[in-house]
């Protein structure tokens, strides 16, 4: 080291002296902006270094800051994800609650409207067997549930009670392969037997190929099985095609659409008429019917013929004269068929008061066979 210094001693001293004078010079001299050269040099010499140092410092600080920020962001992201998951669950819960409330309200409304006496039940479990389509509801024999009772929803039939336990019941769903029920189509009144297939859709059997069934047509219960009250929706036809012996008709069970949580167990079934199919175009204006003409014959009810009118007239004549058709012996006095009987409107209140009640189906559990499944 000493040798090196001795070797370059002269030039080192020269540079030092020059540098010292440069500093001295720069201290005195000002530039055109009245700034001393030494300050200009100092700033010029220091600022790049300071810029580099600041760049390094800011880079390191930024790196550390970003790292910490990213660490915080990661933590925040994790926390937000948890919160989002919680909110999603809460939202789903609230949606379910709302849907449950809606379903319960719809169920109550349907329960109030339907003439059948029903019992609301909640599905509490499903069958343990993979192939069977059964569910358990929280109403059993203590609530009056009996084997064979129909289980429905406002949307359609669900199944029937397969077994009744004190606090629960086992319900066989319409999709179970062993399920069967009598159905009738809404538009063409085609009768058939609804059978489950083990999956989503059901099949309507025993419909002749000559019968007319359209896709989209609704099937209702026919009441023939003595389980389901007549007029309960079953489902909409999705597939119709001619088969080797009978039509192949597939129906989407409406009662199972949108999940199954609340059901109605029909304790006392009351048959209803199958609702008429709506016309395709409901927006066509129909004028009100003309007023009844007193001189003209009363209008025939829909679907009636002149023979029906004549038979009704004879019945009224017979009732007016106390004659019972089919009971008089040959040669006895016939009723006066020219008797003028009062118009039907005047006798309507009295007739309505004497009209028989709607047919009541007895308790299906008592009347139906033990099992109608094939």
């Amino acid at each position, binding site marked *: 080291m000493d040798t090196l210094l001795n070797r370059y*001693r*002269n*030039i080192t*001293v*020269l540079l030092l*002296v*020059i540098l010292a*004078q*440069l500093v*001295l*010079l*720069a201290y*005195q*001299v000002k*530039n*055109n902006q009245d700034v001393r*050269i030494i300050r200009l040099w100092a700033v010029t010499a220091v600022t790049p270094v300071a810029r580099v140092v600041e760049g390094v410092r800011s880079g390191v600080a930024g790196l550390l800051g970003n790292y910490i920020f990213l660490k915080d962001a990661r933590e925040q992201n994790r926390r937000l994800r948890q919160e989002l998951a919680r909110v999603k669950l809460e939202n789903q819960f609230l949606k379910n609650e709302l849907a449950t409330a809606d379903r319960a309200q719809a169920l109550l409304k349907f329960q109030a409207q339907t003439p059948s006496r029903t019992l609301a039940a909640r599905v509490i479990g499903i069958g343990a067997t993979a192939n069977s389509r059964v569910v358990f509801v929280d109403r059993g024999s203590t609530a009056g549930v009996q084997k064979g009772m129909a289980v429905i929803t406002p949307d359609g039939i669900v199944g029937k009670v397969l077994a009744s336990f004190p606090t629960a019941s086992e319900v066989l769903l319409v999709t179970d392969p062993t399920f069967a029920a009598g159905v009738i189509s809404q538009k063409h009144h085609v009768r058939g037997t609804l059978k489950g297939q083990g999956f989503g859709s059901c099949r309507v059997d025993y419909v002749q190929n000559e019968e007319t069934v359209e896709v989209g047509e609704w099937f209702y219960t026919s009441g023939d099985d003595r389980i389901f009250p007549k007029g309960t929706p079953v489902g909409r036809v999705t597939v119709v095609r001619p088969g080797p012996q009978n039509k192949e008709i597939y129906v989407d069970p409406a009662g199972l659409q949108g999940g199954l949580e609340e059901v109605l167990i029909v304790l006392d079934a009351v048959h209803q008429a199958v609702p008429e199919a709506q016309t395709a175009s409901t927006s066509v204006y129909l004028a009100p019917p003309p007023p009844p003409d007193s001189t003209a014959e009363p209008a025939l009810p829909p679907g009636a013929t002149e023979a029906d009118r004549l038979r009704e007239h004879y019945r009224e004549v017979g009732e007016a004269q106390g004659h019972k058709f089919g009971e008089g012996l040959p040669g006895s006095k016939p009723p006066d068929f020219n008797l003028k009987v009062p118009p039907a409107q005047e006798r309507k209140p009295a007739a309505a008061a004497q009209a028989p009640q709607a047919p009541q189906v007895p308790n299906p559990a008592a009347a139906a066979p033990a099992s109608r499944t094939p």
Partner: protein
Amino acid sequence: MSRGERLMFSSQRESEISRFRARVLFAVPLAAILFQVYVPLFFEFLAYLELPLLVVVYFALMRRSPVGGLFIGALVGLAQDSLSRNPLGMFGIVKTLVGYFAASVGMRFDVDHPFIRFALGFFFFLFHQFFYWVLARGLLGLPVSFEIQRTLVLGLLNAVVAVSLFHFLDKLKERG
């Protein structure tokens, strides 16, 4: 011995360092500076003589020490700056370099030779003027011009004066 070899050192004796008394080292530069400052007030044409420069070159050549030469140059230059309008350091830097290089050259050439002295006087005058012009433009940003012909003429003039001055200053050497 060829002519070129005579310009170089031919013996150890010729390369010996000349020594001066301290008062000589102090008084001669001071006198040169005073001459540079005051004499042109009365004889304007003498302003073209760079006596401080010539004194620095002489002492650097004679001392044959770069460090000594640069310090002599620095001190003379700073003194000259302090007595002029220049910022301190302009002549100091230039004369520092002159003293350093002059001492370096004096280690290789026979600086007692009049031709060498003339040549070195001429060369270092040009060097001094050029480097001062560089510093003036580079550091101070002064709009000064470098007139080559005028500089060459003044260089010759100073070189002639240098030969005479150096001969006079040789008388002030310490006699060993």
